[in-house]
């Protein structure tokens, strides 16, 4: 079992001054602190390095961050300060090699996402040189990736900067949303299909209601009637479909009624199809159980290896024993029922993103849609699994101002409607001011200031925050002299010692060059890492 493989890739120069990173000791109990029941995600001392030819880029060097339930936390900083790397590290999406998370904790849902990190790779300095050799255990890394499927999507969702690049170009929009739906809400969907009652007498009544609403020509009433139809059939997507059919038919109400009746007639899966759906459901249940095991593992429960392997074996057997569905051609037919259901569900989701023509959008391909539209689709996709946290990585940077305004409007609305905690990553303080509740200011791989949004804007404490705020050209304050922070963002291969801002800081003191400044609490929910402030040091 040659688990560890020496990779030549890791033979990169390590500057003399860089200590070989020591991973966090695994003996720490990963239980969340009791005082903060509101915190859904907690990042502790996260360190992510990139081992490149030029040297070790210390992209994240001890990041501490909290995301609270129902709040929008803004993470703001300049290019290269590591804000995106933070999000990718949380999702474990750092390309490895060259990147590697070296230590820290990401506490989520009672467990540590980075569980077992220290066993994934070992670092040995090569004697007489300034290089380090990384031996990766690919087996453990693969296991960690598998484990992440329990978190990604349904635990933490993510949207990206370039919506046009972030969608798969060869699948339709509905196809891509359906994938997420089947992954995370598959059981519910299969149950819906199997348990639906298209013959229910209430269905006919509800359909009659739709016809009448349509004759009256009131689209609000039609929508309510459509929802009733969905309830009666015990499959909400039927309502959406019927609504779309009635809308498309316009005045031809009788035709629409016939169409809906056709749809209802075609809904019931046959016996063989039902057995395929059972199999799918069983697979999903097993996968869910496996995810549960993974989550428990992350929470620090020991001795789960047996259960995990049993489940994996069961999944394999389940997949093998149901090969015959493919041979009999049932899979295709049964999948169509699933596809229909997920299609209309994705239409529903798109409607929720205030997209005017959701059916058309769902049928379209990404290249047919504009950036703003795609960003809505991305948000719909990320929210379809109802994650606890949404990581939004510069969601409006690639968009025009007027479109950015639309997306920000949508995010504000979603915040109140869905209640998902959002981590909004952006370089634009103005966007933060518009949407965020709390702000974390990042500089060169560390968080320098953290606090409630009004507080930060009213009373910025850290010199970097002050400089950043002053350097924004203000529409409301014209003809100011442009102020800038002297110098530029430091090279993270050779980051400055002590406070990383000190070479650019107007208030730099000798002490700043020495140790990293501690994080002190300055007022209510306002913390800063700067020697200028002498408040109490933050506990953790």
């Amino acid at each position, binding site marked *: 079992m040659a688990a560890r493989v020496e990779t030549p890739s890791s033979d990169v120069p390590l500057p003399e001054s860089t200590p070989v990173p020591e991973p966090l000791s695994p003996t720490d109990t990963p239980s969340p602190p009791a005082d903060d029941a509101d915190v859904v995600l907690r990042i502790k001392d996260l360190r992510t390095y990139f081992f490149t030819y030029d040297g070790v880029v210390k992209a994240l060097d001890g990041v501490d961050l909290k995301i609270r339930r129902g709040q929008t936390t803004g993470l703001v900083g300049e290019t290269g300060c590591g804000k995106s*790397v933070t999000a990718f590290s949380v999702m474990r999406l750092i390309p490895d090699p*060259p990147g590697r998370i070296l230590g820290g904790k990401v506490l989520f849902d009672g467990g540590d996402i980075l569980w077992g990190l220290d066993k994934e790779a070992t670092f040995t300095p090569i004697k007489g040189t300034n290089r380090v050799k990384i031996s990766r255990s690919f087996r453990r890394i693969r296991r960690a990736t598998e484990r992440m499927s329990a978190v990604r999507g349904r635990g933490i969702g993510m949207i990206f900067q370039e919506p046009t690049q972030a969608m798969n170009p060869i699948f339709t929009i509905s196809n891509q949303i359906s994938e997420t739906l089947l992954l995370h809400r598959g059981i519910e969907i299969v149950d819906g299909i199997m348990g639906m009652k298209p013959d229910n007498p209430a269905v006919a009544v509800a359909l009659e209601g739709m016809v009448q609403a349509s004759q009256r020509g009131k689209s609000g009433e039609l929508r309510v009637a459509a929802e009733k139809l969905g309830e009666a059939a015990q499959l909400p997507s039927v309502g959406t479909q019927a609504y779309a059919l009635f809308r498309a038919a316009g005045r031809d109400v009788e035709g629409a009624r016939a169409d809906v009746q056709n749809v209802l007639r075609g809904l019931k899966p046959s016996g063989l199809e039902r057995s395929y759906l059972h199999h799918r459901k069983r697979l999903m249940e097993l996968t869910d159980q496996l995810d549960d095991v993974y989550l428990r593992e992350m929470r620090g429960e020991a001795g789960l290896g047996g259960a995990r392997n049993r489940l994996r074996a069961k999944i394999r057997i389940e997949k093998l024993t149901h090969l015959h569905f493919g041979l009999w051609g049932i899979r295709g037919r049964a999948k169509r029922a699933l596809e229909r259901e997920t299609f209309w569900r994705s239409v529903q989701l798109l409607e929720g993103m205030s997209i005017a023509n959701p059916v058309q959008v769902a049928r379209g391909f990404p290249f047919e849609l504009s950036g703003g539209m795609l960003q809505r689709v991305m948000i719909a996709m990320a929210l379809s699994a109802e994650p606890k946290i949404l990581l939004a990585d510069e969601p409006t940077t690639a968009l025009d101002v007027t479109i950015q305004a639309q997306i920000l409007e949508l995010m504000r609305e979603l915040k109140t409607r869905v209640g998902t905690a959002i981590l909004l990553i952006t370089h634009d303080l103005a966007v933060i001011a518009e949407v965020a509740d709390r702000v974390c200011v990042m500089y060169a791989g560390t968080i320098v200031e953290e606090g409630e949004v009004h507080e930060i804007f009213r009373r910025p404490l850290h010199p970097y925050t002050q400089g950043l705020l002053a350097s924004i050209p203000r529409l409301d304050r014209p003809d100011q002299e442009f102020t800038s922070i002297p110098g530029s963002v430091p090279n993270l291969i050779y980051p400055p010692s002590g406070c990383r801002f000190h070479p650019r800081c107007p208030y730099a003191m000798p002490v700043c060059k020495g140790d990293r400044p501690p994080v002190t609490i300055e007022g209510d929910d306002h913390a800063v890492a700067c020697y200028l402030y002498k408040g109490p040091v933050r506990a953790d």
Partner: protein
Amino acid sequence: MATDPSTAAAPLTGSPTEPVPPAPSGRRPNPRLEQYKRTWFFLRRNTLALIGLGIIVMLVLIALYAITQPIPWNGLPECTASNNQVVKFTETGLPGGTSWSITINGVTSSTSGNNVTFSLASGPAYKFTVGNVTGYHASPASGTVNVAGAPITEKITFIAGGAVSGSSSGAASPGSSASLPSCSVCTYPVGTPVPGPNCYQTPKNVPGVIAPTVSLHPLTLGALPMGSLALQPDIPYFYNVYNGMLRGTDYSLLISFAIVIVGAFVGLFLGAVSGFFGGAVDETIMRLVDIFLSIPQLLFVIIVIAVVSTTYPGGLFGLSDLDTRVLLLISAFMIVWWPYYARIVRGQVLVVREQKYVEAARASGAGKGRIVMKHIVPNSMYPVFIQMSLDVGAIPILIGTLVFLGFTIWPTPYFPEWGTIAAFGTSDVIGQFLIGCEAGICVIPWWQMVFPGLALFLFAISVNFLSDGLRDALDPRLRR
């Protein structure tokens, strides 16, 4: 590292207010050297590329050595079995391609080439007669040769017109081209006792097939270290594979490099023109590229060479036969090769052309020539280099394939070029066991195809390893 924007950290910390840290050691930094160092660093981590580099360096050294050795290409040691002797008839005066024949000792052999060779047991004198050729008469039309210890060359001159003149007779002295170095080895049939030192067993009593004579303990090379290569199993003289390989190193390398460089130049020029000017020029060139790429390249080379050598049997531009053929080969391959380069270069130029620095040069008033030479060509070169290094390895293989198909590209059937040797060796082996060997004594002359094949393989694969390593080292996206 290019995958993540946040790692693109700025290496410089200069600003209007703070001075930039001075250059490392006071002297002016050489930035290009830095780039080479960087490339070498990535190449060094690729073991296969290093192996490839080593093999190529070795081959180049061998080629340099072989050039200094006095082994003429058409004078490859034709080793002769000790009990037989070669009698060679050389013709002058007939136009190329005309068939003529010689009868000696009751055996008639005809050819359209210049030479007819017989292998005759030493001792007696043999009578020969020259067959009639319409419109010519031969001088001498018949005669006698005394076969003694050395190979004999007899010259026949054909004179146009007139009737056949009377015969001349006399003992032919060894011909003037007997200066060819030869190596005599002693052969003996399977099952008979070893006659003496430097004697080698031949299967099926065929003196032309001799196994490698390398003895590993103690290391001796023998007369035929890599064995012999017999073009026809029944004639007693044969070729020394080792010498052929040695001599072939520089022929193969030179021809490959010549073909690739010429093809790349044409492709680079046409591709750059096509990509930069666009429009009708681009359309025309790209349609041409499509046309040339549709014709299977090997067949195209065959057709071009066949047509030209049929049309101009006497050679082109007054060049010697060998020079004509090398020129022909290079041109034919160039015609099939340039479209690949043109396509690569055009794709690259289309990307580079849209770069803002090209537009900036235009905004400063740079002319088209300057833009192409200073900006576009230097930035489109890397893929061309990589493709060139790949193609160099393919040429000897393609030449071998042509020869294997039975297509005549060299003036003599046996030409010291790896592909040619491998092709002859292989077809001989295949012939041996397809026709079948007698029960009990079935020796397959594996060395004929293994040694030249190995040379071809090693050359091509090391070139591939190296170019793959270079691609990885030069492509920032694939870097880690």
